């Protein structure tokens, strides 16, 4: 589904990703872990199409199409979804109006009928229940005045509504208490299907207790230096990241 080859990218003239390779198949959950500043969030932003990041080499293929040539909205319509680490507050833009417009753009791109207000409301009702989100929040402006936990839950709620093929969760666990973490994880797990995939970006292993990955990759200094099964996450939790940097076996590509 997602093939990243030798991806190098940076921002403001600073190189952050340095030849990253990653392959994700439909139905899989991959975790990307790594120390602060290793390039995890840059990877997420580059995949979503943030213009501030400049790709200097490499390719990203998503379901056979070259992702890097698409605008952010085209990527979203093709089924890429980024759950932001820091969701933006957008005063004056009503949550419901925003999400209905987004869903109908995605549905149009998939060749599906646009939903009218009543149909959309039915979708919202179902998905807010899934995330145990107070539907009253949707009367407000996008993310405005939401607590940290509500913002993160709102990201996963949007994901539930838009039904992407590839979901990228950028530090979705940060700022969540244990109850919220369980709700968000349960939501993500319920949305798993054989034809979609999830990329979980996290600093801590904790989230991976609830969203169990098929593969775990360690990102250090812009490259994936080690890959393994879910047990690798536990090892990182126990030993930190330093040993990987010193491990001769991890110098090459996984």
């Amino acid at each position, binding site marked *: 589904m997602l093939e990243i080859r030798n991806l190098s990218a940076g921002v403001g003239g600073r190189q952050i990703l340095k030849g990253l390779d990653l392959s994700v198949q439909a139905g899989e959950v991959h975790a990307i872990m790594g120390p602060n500043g290793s390039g995890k969030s840059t990877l997420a932003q580059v995949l*979503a*199409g*943030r*213009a*501030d990041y400049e790709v200097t080499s490499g390719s990203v293929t998503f379901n056979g199409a070259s992702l890097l040539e698409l*605008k*952010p*909205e085209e*990527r*979203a*319509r093709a089924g890429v*979804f*980024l759950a*932001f680490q820091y*969701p*933006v507050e*957008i*005063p*004056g*833009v009503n949550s419901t*109006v*925003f*999400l209905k*417009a*987004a*869903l109908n*753009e*995605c549905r149009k*791109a998939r060749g599906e009928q646009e939903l009218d207000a009543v149909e959309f409301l039915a979708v919202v009702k179902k998905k807010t229940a899934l995330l145990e989100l107070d539907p009253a929040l949707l009367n407000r*402006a*996008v993310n405005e005045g939401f607590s940290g936990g509500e913002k993160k839950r709102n990201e996963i709620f*949007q994901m539930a509504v*838009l039904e992407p093929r590839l979901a990228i969760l950028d530090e979705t666990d940060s700022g969540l208490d244990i109850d919220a973490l369980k709700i968000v994880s349960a939501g993500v797990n319920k949305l798993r299907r054989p034809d979609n995939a999830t990329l979980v970006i996290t600093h801590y292993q904790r989230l991976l207790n609830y969203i169990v990955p098929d593969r775990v990759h360690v990102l250090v200094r812009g490259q994936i230096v080690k890959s393994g099964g879910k047990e690798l996450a536990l090892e990182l939790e126990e030993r930190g990241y330093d040993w990987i940097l010193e491990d001769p076996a991890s110098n090459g590509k996984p």
Partner: protein
Amino acid sequence: MTDTLAPTDRKPAHAPFFGGALGPGPAWLQSLRQKARGRLDEIGFPTTDQEEWRFTNVAPLLQWPLHPAEPASRRIGPADIEPFRLAGDGYCLVFVNGRFRPELSTLPRPGAHVQAGSLRAQWNGGAPEWEKHLARHAGCDSNFFTALNTASFEDGAFVFAPPNAAVGQPVQLLYLAASDRPGAAVHPRNLIVADGGSSLKVIETYASLTEAPHLTNAVTELALGPGAHVEHGKLQNENERAFHIATVQAVQGADSHWLSHSIATGARLARNQIQTLLNARGAEAVLNGLYLARGEQLTDHHTLIDHAQPHCQSHEFYYGILAGRSHGVFNGKILVRQDAQKTNAKQTNRNLVLSESALIDTKPQLEIFADDVKCTHGATVGQLNAEALFYLRSRGIGAALARRMLVRAFANDAVERVTLAPARERLEKLLTEWFEGLDFPLSSHD
């Protein structure tokens, strides 16, 4: 001063304005008119050398032979009025080229809670309120166009809410320009009196039925008695070749509340002076403004809140959106006089600049002579938030729609402050049309 530049062959400043011909009316009004005309020459036609007109060059106004607007060249019927009328059961006074058109208007029945009709109907023995207030509040000493209006106005609206009248239906004053010949001038004059304890909502709408350049030079005076509540809106959407100059002057009694809206989207050059005198303890004013400009438009708001008495409050919010090669001017003056202790005044001016060629000049002007007061002001100039734009696009919303959503969002607070529902609906429609017509230059990031 004017004496340093007074060549002997200089034409009087009122010469282009049909020689400052005086409008009609009873003797007391004639004497006010004469006084006003006398001021014209002393003030002189505004130039950018004058601080009050530094950014707003009105000289292009003189490029056409200005003439008093003639009656509309074609029949103007209800179908022409319909697009501008507020929905609902409100009253509507229609003026076409400055002439009152009762057959197109919806007027209150005699004996209703409110009086609304043409000023001319008051010429002979009208309500005592009109003689008490007309041309008594909008100062002619320094404002050329106000003096010109006072000298020349032919007609306008008189709206009067008697003591304790709770007027349910809004009153719309609809001014339509319908000239084909360039340079038609109209000087609308409105007097709105809300007596003690009354409540009243008045919306002035200015629009054009043709594309010809024309001049509107409007003056509205509002007198709010003790405890009166008035919502007053001015919606200016004239064609983009028009010159629109207006003064709104309120005078507020004790514990009165004035909610003012000035929404300006039209005209090539629009200058609005929105002013209130907080003239007794406990008066409160909320000044809400929204100006949108694109192309070559110039839109200028000068506001003045005169805190003359203690324990008064003012809250001012002016928002501007500037696209194309447009130019916005905001000058917000708050005057707190020596007696005006315990004044609470707050001013906010926010500007969204959508193109590199658009320009905004914003200036708060606080003059405070009392010592126990709370006054704050803030002005911002910014562009669309790139993070918010990316967030919307990352959910599948196209760049153009995402921008429109964010621009619309910027105007949202100003729209929400309009409490009169039909006026808000009308404003929403106006904004939607305006935003759809916006041509965003796409950046390399798209």
